[in-house]
């Protein structure tokens, strides 16, 4: 038995802290929440103005230009039709909006953080454990305070998704920069590159494949959060899965599950294809 006298709880202090935060800074949180919501709504209405065949066309175009093979292009562009056939098209667009917004926020935060982590070695010792925590902490643990601060709905869902999806892009950006061959960097320095020039001309371009792998992973992680995020009111495809589970409706669960898988496959192949296209090291 662990000695009882040594027990010490931080729980009540954290609870009080959250309460004080809510009481004293509610306008701040509301403003932030509103801003984020406006952004999301903007993205969502933009995404819904594109007709269904527009998406098919877009996917076909992008996958043709990045993969350049006929069969995968046809399969990738026809797969999403199944989502529409199951009657989930609008929900899928809603989910897509949440994923897009979460990914954009993750990249805007994550790529610079990854760069800073690679540039300032000592920061890694601080950031790495935090990233580990973000990835292993059960999401419900931070869903609860996020809900208390921002209420039910899409805003806490996006925050939870960002927390979950942010680490890979930070890690892979940092790793990509660290793996840039030393001789190439040395040559740049020998010709009088400043630290900034070294980053811009050599380290970032050569880290691109790794950064794009990070973008791909972050997107996939964001998509895998949709079911959990729908528990706090994110709606979209995840909600269909939840409803099906609650009603023990296996068939409907299958349909909505498959729809999420299709989104995942299409997004994955497309981001991977684009990543290859953007690899600045040409073979010619």
């Amino acid at each position, binding site marked *: 038995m662990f000695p009882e006298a040594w027990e010490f709880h931080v729980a009540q202090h954290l609870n009080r802290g959250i309460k004080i935060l809510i009481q004293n800074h509610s306008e701040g949180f509301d403003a932030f929440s509103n801003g984020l919501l406006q952004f999301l709504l903007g993205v969502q209405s933009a995404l819904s103005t594109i007709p269904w065949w527009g998406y098919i066309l877009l996917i076909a175009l992008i996958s043709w230009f990045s993969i350049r093979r006929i069969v995968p292009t046809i399969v990738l562009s026809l797969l999403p039709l199944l989502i529409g056939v199951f009657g989930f098209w609008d929900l899928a667009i809603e989910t897509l909006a949440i994923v897009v917004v979460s990914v954009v926020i993750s990249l805007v935060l994550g790529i610079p953080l990854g760069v800073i982590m690679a540039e300032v070695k000592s920061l890694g010792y601080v950031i790495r454990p935090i990233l580990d925590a973000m990835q292993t902490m059960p999401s419900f643990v931070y869903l609860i305070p996020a809900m208390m601060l921002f209420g039910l709905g899409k805003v806490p869902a996006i925050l939870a998704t960002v927390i979950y999806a942010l680490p890979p892009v930070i890690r892979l950006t940092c790793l990509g920069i660290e793996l840039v061959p030393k*001789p*190439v960097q*040395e*040559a*740049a*320095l*020998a*010709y*009088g*590159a*400043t630290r900034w*020039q070294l980053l811009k*001309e*050599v380290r970032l*371009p*050569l880290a691109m494949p790794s950064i794009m792998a990070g973008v791909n992973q972050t997107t996939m992680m964001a998509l895998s959060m949709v079911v959990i995020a729908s528990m706090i009111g994110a709606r979209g495809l995840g909600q269909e899965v939840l409803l099906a589970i609650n009603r023990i409706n296996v068939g409907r669960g299958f349909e909505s599950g498959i729809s999420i898988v299709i989104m995942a496959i299409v997004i994955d192949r497309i981001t991977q294809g684009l990543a290859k296209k953007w690899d*600045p*090291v*040409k*073979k*010619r």
Partner: protein
Amino acid sequence: MSDVAIEVKELWKVYSKSKSGKVVLDVDDEELMRSIEVSEEDVVAVRDLSFEVKKGEVFIVMGLSGSGKSTLIRCLIRLVEPSYGKVIINGYDVTAMDKKELTEFRRYQTAMVFQHYGLLPHKDVLDNVAFGLKLRGVPKKERREKAMHALEVVGLEKWANYYPSSLSGGMRQRVGIARALVADPPILLMDEPFSGLDPLIRREMQDELIRLQEEMHKTIFFVTHDLDEAMRLGDRMAVMRDGSIVQIGKPAEIFANPANDYVARFVQDRREEIRKADEQIAALNAAKDKEVNSDVS
């Protein structure tokens, strides 16, 4: 103006595993110096070097692998931080410069050619050559014109829009040389630039460097482990062993009078090579004669 291009005074470099890479020496602290000599963690790569390189001279540093040649050439422009001593290039005290001065110095006073080329794989040949000018802030059109001209000098103008990965080793090093020439600095630093190339190509590149030097009259600091190369290119040479210079002088003098066994071994190897080459040529000629004879019959 003095005629000294590079002046190295009491230069030391100690690599250390324990002290996170950076060692600052005090050569008067006898105890410290002794502890470094015996320590397993510290490697003395450059040991108390002092010498001068004259303007317009091709100065060779020769030594076996691990003798500290790369460390020395990197210390000259502080790609490796010296642990003690002074480097003065064209009157500038390199060892006393702050970051900004050093960057400026590297842009205008020196250019380096590397054994493994050090080309940027994401830029095409033209942009690789123009890289030094880009760092200086030269406008795009002007730097591309100059880069194209440098490519013509090394005979690669047709390859301007290819990427380094599609070039052979010899061509890549030509790009490396063009990149150094376009910056037109008074001093060229070359760290075993031809060591990775086939003997025939190496020979060709050496001839080309000789031809270029006849027009340029630059100061060239050239590192090699090949006595043949040293003898062909060098006006003067220093032989390095375990971080120290064991002999310094004209290549022919060193070839004739090696100062000790270490130097003598290089010379011996070289004499051996010459003998073998002679034999091979004789054998080839014999074979040819035979062929001609059999054709006749």
